[in-house]
């Protein structure tokens, strides 16, 4: 099965995307993981990135490519992506957990400190995480940024949260 048949990428497919930083780059710093791979006519991520880390170029249907060395993990591309296909990942912690930033558009929003269920790309619950921050800003245009601590081994697996309540 592929995303075109069941709607979601496998981890292997994500790792092979030009928008996915190498495992080494992910270890080194907080970075964006761009899970976009289908030649859509779209480039707000490139426009959003002031660090020049994301390239779409010409034609506009190029799949976004990341230069992880330039990415400072600010997350502006994440809130500007109309496909909600960008996630920010911080694997630099040394407590066995990673911080994951998710674009989130469901109400009610989780609360700071709340324990939430973690879902993978297929929507299956794979574990539990703890919300560290929920950010909203005019610049985000009603897409909230939910920051959640997840077990490190789920950093590239968890892609959504579900509330327990």
């Amino acid at each position, binding site marked *: 099965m592929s*995303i075109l048949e069941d709607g979601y990428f496998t981890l292997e497919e994500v790792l092979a995307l030009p928008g996915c930083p190498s495992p080494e780059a992910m270890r080194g710093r907080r970075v964006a993981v761009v899970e976009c*791979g*289908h030649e859509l006519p779209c480039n707000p991520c490139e*426009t*959003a990135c002031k660090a020049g880390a994301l390239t779409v170029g010409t034609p*506009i249907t190029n799949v976004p490519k990341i230069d992880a060395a330039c990415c400072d993990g600010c997350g502006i591309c994440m809130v500007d992506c109309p*496909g*909600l296909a960008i996630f920010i990942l911080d694997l630099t912690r040394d407590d066995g957990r990673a911080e994951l930033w998710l674009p989130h558009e469901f109400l009610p929003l989780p609360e700071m400190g709340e324990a939430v269920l973690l879902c993978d790309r297929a929507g299956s619950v794979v574990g539990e995480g703890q919300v560290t921050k929920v950010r909203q800003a005019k610049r985000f*245009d009603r*897409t909230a940024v939910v920051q959640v601590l997840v077990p490190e081994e789920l950093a590239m697996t968890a892609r959504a949260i579900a509330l327990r309540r």
Partner: protein
Amino acid sequence: MKQAEIVVVGAGPAGLSAAAAAAQAGAQVLVIDENAEPGGQLFKQIHKFFGASEHRAGQRGVDIGHELLEEVEGLGVDVVLDASVWGIYDGSTVAVASQEYSWRVKADRIVLATGATENGLSFRGWTLPGVMGAGCAQTMMNVHRVLPGQRVVMVGSGNVGLIVAYQLLQAGAEVVAVVDALPRVGGYPVHAAKIARAGVPIYTSYSVKEADGDECVEKVTIWRVDDRWQGVPGSEIELDADTVTLAVGLSPMAELAWVAGCRFLHIPELGGHVPVHSAYMETTVPGIYVAGDVSGVEEASCAMEEGRLAGLWAASAAGRLSVAAAVAAAAPHEASLARLRSGPFGAAARGGKLAMDGRRDEAWGQTLTRGGA
């Protein structure tokens, strides 16, 4: 009889864009729409649009609608609502029915931006309350704030199906399944990924077999379809659902072009019968232009660019803009359209518009069976 330099029928993304472009060129523009509110489908589009910054990518459709409306109002365009255009005579007299009276307006140029209608799908139980178009569900939720159902089966995985499924989740419904008879997801994979990670199963190569219930939908049965579109007995899956939303394509709402005597071609990639039009968006009836879904079903971003082109060329034909000035003003919109239609997801529209150019003579040669010029 009322007079208007340019009458635009339809106040959606294409019509408002056409009105803005024409008014900017100095034309006196009258926009007529049968709905109580302008904006067409834009105010239901609460998601962020795709494209580049020139297409207002990243902005939500509803906000683009407000901006367009402000632009049109600022240019002094007259927008008449709650009024249905029901006929066009001699290529220039537009017949309108308002709530309490009928009236006519003589137009130098006419832009048809009437949009499209949702296709239906028949299956046993399809007349039960609870079966509706995806656009209908979207109107209920995003305009009238009414949740159409609690447990929804979405039929069709094109962008409309995927986006409305996501909006149903946002509104608090459960989407039990998205089914598509095609073996592949039709819309943007990123839209599919959004609902997949929210737990919505997507069944490709599946269709609705039947909907059951006494007075409304209580159960929906889906089944696999083979490569000849036949249901496979034994593959049935019963779903506990109270709503079926149909997102199985759109057809250009081209009745006014028919009655005006425009020539048509059947181009499946564009949604069915479309009025033949030139790169200037002019139909085969001189002075009548088309823009947006009526000229071939595409994304709203494309409708806005086509609207700008139709408005520019109509204003130019009305003497408000030299051809050279119109060519220059049209160029960025043409380039922008080409960008929106690039890549695999633009192939249908690209191919469809090309096919129209290639078959232009065929349209002139055919015997008119509807309308009549």
